[in-house]
């Protein structure tokens, strides 16, 4: 151990109330769930951690997974592999694939959904899809709680406030009967250069009643073109020659004018991905 360095004090709350009380009295403490993000790639024998650590994994309520009629409710400390255990038929293919794409099976036995959401670095894996699915988060603090949309959570002023803890994640069940989650590059070995694509669409009686897609970039920003999605929704399938359609300009313009710097190669990749998903939709008929 390094001389003169104080080892952290660890607290093991068993209920959410205990946790909130502790966190209120020690707002600078580290909330430790799976820990995979905290120790990832660090080689020190004694990693420097804050003076006070609150271990969340002993709180059963935070690891619970519940299914109700309208949504799937997942405790923030539910391990990713436990969530996969619910099955692809409940999670639906895109979410199942997205979770499975995270790290190795061993790491998924430690990593939690709440950790993935709270991590400032891992926004590329589940965020693009969870935002499409209208995911809501429960943020609790001593003496109060609030539900917030994931999109709002990403805005700093509306996201986690001092003393707040992410406790539950609510993913509504949906009728999107066509879903895809695609990764270009390798999230495990080359996270920075990989991109994630999430597509979900609902096709009813040969009509594309709803389509949503988003992309996770290397700088952890999420790209989505709502007016392009709206323009496509309600169209009859099959859709051919979309690139000649004026509506398609909304996508290409957004790709060019976006705040995120996208190289021509990436733009082509994104357009190609979208068109290939559209082909898939045409093929479902």
């Amino acid at each position, binding site marked *: 151990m390094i001389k003169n360095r104080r080892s952290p004090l660890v607290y093991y709350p068993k209920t959410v109330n205990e946790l909130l009380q502790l966190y209120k009295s020690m707002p600078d403490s580290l909330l430790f769930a799976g820990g995979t993000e905290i120790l990832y790639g660090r080689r020190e024998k*004694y990693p420097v951690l804050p003076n006070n650590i609150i271990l969340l994994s002993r709180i059963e309520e935070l690891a619970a997974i519940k299914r109700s009629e309208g949504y799937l409710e997942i405790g923030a400390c539910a391990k990713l592999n436990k969530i996969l255990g619910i099955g692809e038929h409940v999670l639906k293919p895109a979410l199942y694939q997205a979770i499975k794409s995270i790290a190795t099976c061993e790491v998924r*036995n*430690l990593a939690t959904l709440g950790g993935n959401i709270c991590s400032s670095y891992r926004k590329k894996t589940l965020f693009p899809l969870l935002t499409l699915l209208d995911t809501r988060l429960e943020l609790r603090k001593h003496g109060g709680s609030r539900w917030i949309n994931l999109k709002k959570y990403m805005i700093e002023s509306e996201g986690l406030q001092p003393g707040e803890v992410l406790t539950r994640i609510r993913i509504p069940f949906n009728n999107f009967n066509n879903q895809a989650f695609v990764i270009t590059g390798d999230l495990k070995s080359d996270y920075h250069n990989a991109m994630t694509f999430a597509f979900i669409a609902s096709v009813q009686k040969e009509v594309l009643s709803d389509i949503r897609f988003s992309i996770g970039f290397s700088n952890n920003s999420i790209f989505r073109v709502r007016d392009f999605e709206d323009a496509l929704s309600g169209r009859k399938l099959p859709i051919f020659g979309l690139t000649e359609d004026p509506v398609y300009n909304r996508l290409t313009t957004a790709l060019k004018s976006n705040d995120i710097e996208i190289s021509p190669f990436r733009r082509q990749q994104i357009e190609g991905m979208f068109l290939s998903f559209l082909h898939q939709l045409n093929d479902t008929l």
Partner: protein
Amino acid sequence: MRIDFSLNGKKVSTDTPPEKRLIDVLREDFGLLSAKNACYSGECGSCTVLLEGQTIPACQIPVFTIRAKHLITMEGFRGTEKYLDIINAFSEAKCTPCPFCFNGKVFAVDRLIDNRRSPEISEIMALLSDHACGCASVSSFIQGVKYAFQNRELRGELLR
């Protein structure tokens, strides 16, 4: 900080800084050298241990997280019939994982064949991609996993 836990079926206690990694505690405080320090990111599988029956990378957790939990390392797993199912199967299939990936592969195969149904090729390949190492051929590994499942199934029938 004093941390009590169960290690390979025995109750043990260690007085160590809580932030010390589990892998270092196992190797330095208990002399269990089967788990190895390699990538420090949980990706290589060389430090895999079983925590409460789940495979986890010991390099990714500080020791305070295992207080009052059950931990099994390869040293403890070696004495079990489950281990023999796998190691005999590997030998039969001429699959010889190197010391670097041995822990990860054996524990992962154990987890896979515990599902009580014959593993599919895609599942074996996914397992292999989690423990990428050039030491054993893909075909021998696939064969080894299939034999391991048969061994376990056979032993299960004998037990019944």
